[in-house]
């Protein structure tokens, strides 16, 4: 079990003896030459620019005057190219296997017959969509866009924390953070060979066009948003603009005669591929939540008939659930015949009696999460919790053991970060984005999130997290 004490963690920039790692050498030297005042003024400039550009998220229930920016840290997270290559291979492998898994469970369920994943783990999962049974999707791809959360722990090895296969967000921050760094510190980019990421929207568009319904020569692609008050609205608008496609809301679309159309100033126009940033539940009020005003009545029928493509597909949530997560390494073996390149975090499934007993006996050392939770809510971080908090969680666990999994508390790696007290280590994670269409593609890097509070392991922006630019460096 990894050590849970907050002191020992992998430092991205320096070795244990204080020597700066090779890939941080040039940066470290540059950083030495910067005064705290100049860094602070650069940080203030970044915040100002983010506000002016409107890279903000709305705070629910507030008016337009109280949008927030996500704190941006001016010290990049640097990965050497050789480490990135391993990570990239591992992520491609993982997403390929997950796509095969989703296709399998909505068709023959070979993995269940083979006795690898228990049937009830799938059928009893609220994210399993019986509507998808027997439906063939273009190229057999379900999760076209995946955002896999990766952390470094122990002596620096990578662990996958979570496979986000529904509507992962954050890619706009990856792109905007890079733009910001180039704007604030152009000199750094002549000192380093940083792999570019700006072509992400192009490969996203290529991916989406590749999965259009058959026989559509020049498919119409749109991005579908829940609307401008959604916290990720900036990203939706940004991606639509960068790809040069329409940003639609549910009310802009309608189903007629077996096809989906959008309402334009020149009449209806057929839509072929919808990159939807709306959850399954809200997509079609006739099929799912009847009270949804965000969706398009009847779209499920068109989708099932193969006359429109949804990206991601309906029903991918069953594969990124925390209760399915423990089976991913076995999926990789089963579908690809390969060994998993990236580590899974050891996971105790509290629905199992032994695992529950172990969890209850070791709550002080474990992280306990809800199987369907997200955003850093509904979880217990044992080492950072009070006795009372632990006891409260113990009650909840005993009552609904199936709702929870437990994992050892990982000592997340830390990266130097510019905080109030100067430059100090803060814990980080990484969300690279994997695009699956004709091929599986990635841009080098991803979104690095940083827990700005000292000692905190929670990187979510809803809980005081910030972001950093992520550099994959050719040495």
């Amino acid at each position, binding site marked *: 079990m990894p050590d849970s004490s907050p002191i020992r963690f992998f430092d991205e920039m320096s070795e244990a003896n204080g020597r700066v790692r090779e890939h941080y050498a040039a940066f470290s030297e540059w950083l030495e030459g910067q005064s705290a005042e100049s860094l602070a003024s650069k940080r203030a400039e970044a915040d100002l620019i983010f506000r002016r550009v*409107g890279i903000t998220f709305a705070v629910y229930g507030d008016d337009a005057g109280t949008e927030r920016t996500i704190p941006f840290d001016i010290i990049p997270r640097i990965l050497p190219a050789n480490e990135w290559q391993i990570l990239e291979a591992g992520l491609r492998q993982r997403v390929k296997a997950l796509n095969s898994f989703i296709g399998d469970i909505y068709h023959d369920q070979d993995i269940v017959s083979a006795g690898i994943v228990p049937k009830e783990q799938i059928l009893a999962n609220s994210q399993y969509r019986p509507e998808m049974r027997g439906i063939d999707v273009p190229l057999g791809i379900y999760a076209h866009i995946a955002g896999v959360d990766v952390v470094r722990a122990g002596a620096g090895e990578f662990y996958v924390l979570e496979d986000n296969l529904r509507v992962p967000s954050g890619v706009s921050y990856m792109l905007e953070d890079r733009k910001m760094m180039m704007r604030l510190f152009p000199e750094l980019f002549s000192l380093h060979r940083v792999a570019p990421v700006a072509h992400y929207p192009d490969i996203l568009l290529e991916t989406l066009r590749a999965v259009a319904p058959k026989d559509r020569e020049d498919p119409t692609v749109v991005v579908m948003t829940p609307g401008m008050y959604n916290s990720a609205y900036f990203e939706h608008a940004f991606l639509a603009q960068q790809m040069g496609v*329409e940003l639609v809301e549910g009310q802009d679309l309608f189903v007629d005669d077996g096809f989906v159309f959008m*309402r334009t*100033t020149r*009449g*209806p126009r057929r839509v072929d591929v919808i990159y939807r940033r709306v959850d399954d539940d809200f997509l079609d009020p006739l099929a799912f939540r009847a009270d949804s005003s965000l969706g398009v009545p009847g779209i499920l029928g068109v989708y099932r008939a193969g006359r429109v493509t949804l990206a991601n597909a309906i029903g991918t949530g069953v594969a990124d659930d925390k209760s399915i997560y423990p089976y991913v390494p076995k999926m990789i073996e089963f579908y690809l015949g390969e060994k998993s390149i990236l580590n899974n975090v050891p996971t105790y499934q509290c629905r199992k009696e032994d695992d529950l007993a172990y969890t209850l006996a070791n709550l002080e050392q474990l992280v306990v999460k809800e199987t369907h939770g997200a955003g850093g809510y509904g979880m217990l971080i044992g080492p950072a919790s009070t006795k009372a908090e632990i006891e409260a969680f113990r009650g909840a666990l005993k009552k609904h053991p199936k709702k929870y999994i437990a994992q050892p508390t990982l000592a997340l790696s830390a990266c130097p970060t510019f905080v109030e007290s100067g430059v100090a280590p803060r814990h980080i994670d990484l969300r690279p984005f994997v695009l699956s269409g004709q091929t599986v593609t990635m841009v080098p890097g991803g979104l690095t999130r940083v827990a700005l509070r000292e000692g905190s392991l929670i990187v979510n922006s809803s809980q005081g997290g910030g972001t950093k630019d992520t550099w994959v460096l050719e040495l």
Partner: protein
Amino acid sequence: MLSRTADHLFWMARYIERAENTARMLDVNVQTSLLPQSEARSAEGWQAMLGISELREKFVAGGHSFSPRELMDFMVRDAKNESSILSCLRAARENARAVRGTLTTEAWETYNTTWLELNQLLRGKTLERDPSAFFEWVKFRSHLSRGVMIGTMLKDESFYFARLGTFLERADNTARILDVKYHGLAEAGQLVEPLPDSGRHGTEPTNYRDFYYWAAVLRSVSAFEIYRKVYRDVITPSRVAELMILRGDMPRSLLACVDEVRSNLAKVTNDHSQETERRAGMLKAELEYGRIDDILQMGLHAYLTNFLERVNDLGRRVSADFLVLHQA
């Protein structure tokens, strides 16, 4: 393009134009309140503001008193007043935000920065210290918003719908500004025809008070210098009316606005829009070949009332033809 997108662009442009015109009217009031005049007359000017914007009822319902201070706050920073400058700039920015992907980066940032700066200005007491400087700022943000569209945007439907919004709103606002005297006098209980010299082509100078009044009207639409240049003569009400209604080369005149409405409509034409285009063309032709004497014969207020109805009709028809979400 998406009907909803066109709708947002249309309203984005309308709201910033409305904010500009409100600032213009308020500024004129501030300026004229510096002239020696009775308190009743000063109050009259402020109340006329409410009259032309059809906000009198709302103002009274809000429990405000008719002091210049409260009137100004109501028109500038009252979030409950949908026509206040604050509300207009917020609405403009919200509409821009809804279609930020359709705008150029510069265009979006202009609208967004306007909103951010407004909040700073209002916190910073600029309005209290130097109201004219504040109104000047609003005008220039509006100039900038238009300019950045013209200077950076592809001349496609997005651009034309925004332009439609600008000129429909300006046509409406210019007509209201010209009609202000009618409202002011009505408030003060002295309902007289505002143009005693109607029928003559205004050769005799008006009295001292009227001079300042009509000069203020001209200034509010940036037309004071234009008037001098065009007429090289004393200011008479009928010439002011002619300039602001019938002169196609005066960029805020009714003719200039309606001409822009007509030509932008022609560029977005679709299967439903023939009747709207016909009505716009007809209105433009009437302005183009109209004579100020005939208008004054009819009565300026009656004429403007009819004009406002027709502009509103065009606005409604544009919505119905292009912006409302048609199924087929």
